[in-house]
Every structure is written in structure tokens, then in C-alpha cells.
């Protein structure tokens, strides 16, 4: 019986190709959107709720005086403070981009105890003015070796008019709180960057504070902001989680938009596939009536039609999700610096399979309803 369903399924190759293509595109979009939702949705459970980040109150990316670090360090409740300035770097080709984080060797490991570097490599790096620590992913991406001299091109101009920062790879750095995260990051000395850059000397992009008591993070944040209330520039302090959450919300509720787009896409797909299935079944009323005359029960005929609809949605859907998985891998490389990785999760795939089955059944509803009422003698002209 499956052979009969398959033969009918493939009877009009052109129409089948176009139908499968529409389902494929719908599930390709679904897969990509679900993967993108991982990046944009505020599911930030793995981000730190206690570590504080202090940035310019007026504009998040505007610089702050590095001297603020001393004042923050003296605020009660602050256990450790460090700072960071980030520039975009690339190796050999602009496509090979990664984040270059300039941090002070003296305090970064106090503010981020989860950063893991071997003691020997840390010692080398601490004493190496233009040394760099890189994540294993970045090391592997360009085949760098410890001790190798690497020219890092950047968007930050130097005093000498160039924008190439020569660094020595001193070791690897791993964030033990996010071991599985794929990140291409290079850490260099703040001092090296600050002395070399053409503008914005003695400023940083952000301060990071570790409170004595994680439960009092909010109070410490308020204390930091109060300290600089009358300063210029003023600052705004929040937990890592809140800051990332707000940054994402500023870009709009992308997660919500994604869901809306997905619903619209699927609704369109359902209409297209449903219309095609309806037309396909209507063209074969006489054949179905003949089959019923031969002894095929009504339910056998309906199962055939439902089977064709399911095949359309499942084959097209699996092709679409498979293609989405391939593309997600491609795009993943371009989203190294997002806090969440772009990933087509197994749950998303399961949801997709459920939708394939659901839409297959729904798309068959109209032809099934029509065939249920089919009169053999009327369809065969036997009146």
C-alpha cells in the first residue's frame, strides 16, 4: 500500500518539487530562526548574577577614565575591580575576526577567578608587555603556537599611524564557567594598548567588580553609581546578566519577532501545501471512486491522502531542517562574540518534526473532508 502512496506522491514531479521546495524553505527558516533565537532570546541563565559591570551612563560604549578603578576599589562591598577595553582584531584577512580584550594583568584574575591559565603561562604573560593569552578555539583556528609572534590587525589606530598590534602568544586562557562555549578571544595587556593607541588614552570601556557578598550585588551597584553621581562622566552599574538582558532588549524583542515570523511562515506554508493537496485530491476524485468500487474502504483512501500529505511535509521539512543545521554551522563562525551560541538544539529539531507531522495532518484536512463525502456513483458518473 505504501508503494501506491509513494507512486501517487511522485506522480507529478514538477508540482512535487515546488511543494517540497516551499516546505523546505519554511523549515529552513524555522531552523534558522530557532537557532537565532538561541542567540537573541534572553535565556541568560548561565550568565553571572553577582558580578557587576560599570559603563558610561550616557552611552554604553563611551569611554570612562581608568582612574575610576581606584575609587571603585574603595567602595565598601567591592571585593575586586578590574577593567577592559575591547577592540576588533583580525588575523591576515578581515574575515578572520576575533575580539581583542585589553585587561590589566594585576587585577583581571581577581575580578574573574574563573579564568584559567596555567601558572607558568600566566607568569610569562604577566611579564611580557606585548604578550597575549588566547582561547583554545582561537589558537586552533589559526594554528598558532606558544611563543609565536602574531601581527593582529585592528580597527584601533596606533600612535605610529598603523593599526597592527604585534603580540606574542604566551598561553591559553579558558573560562571555566563556560568551558563548552566556543569563543575566539585574545587577551592583551591594557597597558600595551593604552600606550600604543592614538586616542582615548587612560580610558576604559568598562569596569568589572566582584562584590564581597553576591547577595548584595544590587546594593553595591547603587553605591558605585552614587559615587560618580556628580562626576563626569556618570556611570551605570548592573549585573552581567541584567546588562546583557537590557542590551538585547534595546535591540528589540527579537525572540518575540522570531516567533511571530515563524508563525506567519508556517501559516503561509500550511495554506500553500493545503491548497496543493486539495487540488491534487480533487483531480483524482474519479480514481478514488474507482478504488472504492474495487473494494478500498473510505478510511483506506483517506489514509492514502494523509500519507501523501505527511510525506510532503516530512520529506520537505527534514530537508529544510538539515539545510538549516548546515547553515547554522556556517553562521556560527560569524557569531563568535555573542554571549549565546547559535545552535539548532535537539529540542528545536523535535519541535520541527512535530510541526511536520502536525502540518501534514492539517494540510490533509480539506481533501480528507472532501473525500469523506465523495459519492462513488456520482464521481464515476454512475447515476
Amino acid at each position: 500500500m505504501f508503494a501506491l502512496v509513494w507512486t501517487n506522491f511522485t506522480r507529478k514531479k514538477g508540482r512535487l518539487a515546488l511543494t517540497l521546495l516551499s516546505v523546505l524553505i519554511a523549515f529552513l527558516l524555522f531552523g534558522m530562526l530557532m537557532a537565532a533565537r538561541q542567540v537573541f532570546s534572553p535565556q541568560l541563565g548561565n550568565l553571572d548574577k553577582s558580578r557587576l559591570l560599570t559603563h558610561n551612563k550616557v552611552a554604553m560604549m563611551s569611554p570612562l577614565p581608568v582612574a575610576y578603578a581606584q575609587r571603585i576599589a574603595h567602595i565598601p562591598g567591592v571585593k575586586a575591580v578590574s577593567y577592559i577595553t575591547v577592540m576588533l582584531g583580525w588575523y591576515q584577512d578581515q574575515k578572520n575576526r576575533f575580539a581583542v580584550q585589553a585587561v590589566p594583568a594585576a587585577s583581571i584574575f581577581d575580578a574573574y577567578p574563573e579564568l584559567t591559565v596555567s601558572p607558568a603561562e600566566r607568569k610569562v604573560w604577566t611579564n611580557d608587555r606585548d604578550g597575549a593569552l588566547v582561547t583554545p578555539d582561537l589558537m586552533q583556528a589559526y594554528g598558532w603556537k606558544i611563543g609565536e609572534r602574531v601581527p593582529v590587525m585592528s580597527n584601533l589606530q596606533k600612535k605610529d599611524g598603523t593599526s597592527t598590534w604585534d603580540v606574542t602568544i604566551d598561553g591559553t586562557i579558558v573560562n571555566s564557567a563556560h568551558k563548552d562555549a566556543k569563543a575566539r578571544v585574545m587577551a592583551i595587556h591594557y597597558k600595551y594598548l593604552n600606550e600604543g593607541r592614538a586616542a582615548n588614552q587612560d580610558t576604559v570601556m568598562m569596569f568589572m567588580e566582584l562584590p564581597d557578598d553576591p547577595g548584595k550585588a544590587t546594593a553595591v551597584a547603587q553605591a558605585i553609581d552614587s559615587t560618580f553621581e556628580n562626576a563626569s562622566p556618570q556611570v551605570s552599574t548592573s549585573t552581567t546578566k541584567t546588562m546583557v538582558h537590557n542590551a538585547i532588549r534595546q535591540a528589540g524583542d527579537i525572540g518575540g519577532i522570531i516567533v511571530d515570523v515563524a508563525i506567519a511562515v508556517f501559516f503561509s506554508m500550511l495554506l500553500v501545501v493545503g491548497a496543493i493537496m486539495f487540488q491534487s485530491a480533487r483531480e483524482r476524485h474519479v480514481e478514488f471512486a474507482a478504488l472504492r468500487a474495487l473494494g478500498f474502504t473510505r478510511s483506506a483512501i483517506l489514509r492514502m491522502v494523509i500519507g501523501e500529505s505527511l510525506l510532503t511535509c516530512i520529506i520537505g521539512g527534514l530537508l529544510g531542517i538539515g539545510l538549516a543545521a548546515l547553515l547554522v554551522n556556517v553562521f556560527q563562525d560569524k557569531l563568535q562574540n555573542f554571549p549565546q551560541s547559535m545552535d539548532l538544539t535537539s529540542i528545536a529539531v523535535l519541535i520541527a518534526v512535530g510541526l511536520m507531522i502536525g502540518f501534514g495532518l492539517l494540510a490533509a484536512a480539506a481533501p480528507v473532508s472532501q473525500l469523506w463525502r465523495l459519492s462513488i456513483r456520482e464521481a464515476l458518473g454512475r447515476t
Partner: protein
Amino acid sequence: MSATEATVTNETTTAATALVQLKDVVKTYQRGSETVQVLQKLSLDVPRGDFLALMGPSGSGKTTLMNLLGGLDKPTSGQVIIDDQPIHQLSDSALAKWRARHVGFVFQLYHLLPVLNAERNIELPLLLTKLSHSERKKRVAAALSLVGLQDRGKHKPAELSGGQEQRVGIARAIVTDPTILLCDEPTGDLDRKAGDEILELLQVLNTEHGKTIVMVTHDPHAAACAKRTLFMNKGVLGEEPEA
């Protein structure tokens, strides 16, 4: 014979041994607000091994009678008993299963599935049985051989002539070895030569293979190939055409 109560029996067969028994069958249809009585208390016995031709003008009720015999429709009242089975009492689903086992339909327009080749068209009714694939293939080959199309099994309907398509239709009708063959204008869409070949084939099936055949036709030449002919007029059966 009464105009409202027609009983036609074969002289050599009693009702007790008849394969097909119709008793006081009435069939009415609703057309808008009008009720049309198509069959009027019709009774008919068809003995096993008979080849009966049903003739009559369009709208006389021939096809309605065939629909009742084939379990495609149910009488408004009366009984339709085939091989001792009162099929008028069966549900739609049970009727479908009954048709699969007991009835072979031969249609005027063949109604072959265009996407399937001759073999697979013939195999269709066998898909409803529990026969194995190899057993089905054997039966299909035998049916193809019986209708003289051994070398056309892989051809699709569009690659066959009308006569060959009807032969495939007949092979599909007999492949399950049904109790009765119901042929609705089997030569109506064919030229004389191809029509004669089909009629000859039906005669062979009747005389050599013992198939009971009921055939609706407008063509006296086709009816002449049957063992007997009945005439239908305004829902009443008779042995002579209406003057």
C-alpha cells in the same frame, strides 16, 4: 407482467439456487424537492454461471440496478442477496470489503490509474488481500495471460490502445476471482473490432471459466453475446423491449 412488480427468473434455475436475488427492490432519489422512483419493486434472479445483458434507454434504471448489485448503493426498500449474503444490510465499510471479495467491475471508461502500469493496476484489488507479493505477482501474470496481454504488463494506460486498456480493466476485475462480474457498457468506448474482442473475452470468461456476468449495454450486438437479455424501462424489468 405487472408494470410495478417485475419478477424475472431464469427458467432453468430456481430462486433457491440463484447467485443473485433481488426482491421487491425500490430505489428512489431526491432531486431537489422531487422524489424520483428509479426502480419500482423490482425482483430479479441471476443464476450462477449466467451471462445477463441489461438493455434499455438512458435513465431507465440500468446503472442504478448495477450499483445495487455491486454494493455501490443501497436500495430504498427490498432485498439484495448475493451468494446468500443480504448485502443491503451491510455497512459502508462492510460493503467495501464485500466488493473486494465478490465483485469485479468493468467500467466503460476503464478507470485505470494512469500512474500505474498494467501489472500494478491489475494488482490493486489484491492489495486488499493477505496474499504475499510473490502470490500477487503470480495472480497478476495469470490474469494478464488470460486477457492476452502478457507482453504489455509494464505499459502504462497511456501507452495502450482502448481495447488493451479494457482488457487490463477486465484482468483487474477477475484477478481476485470474484463471485460476479459487473460490466457497465464495456464496449461503449471502443470501435467495433476492439469491442468484439472484449465481448469474445467476456464469453470465454463465462463459458470456460464459469464467471457470472451482468452487463449493461445499449448495443444489441453486445447484448447478443450474452446468454440472455433483459430490458429495463422506467424502473421495470421485462424480457421484451418496450414497444
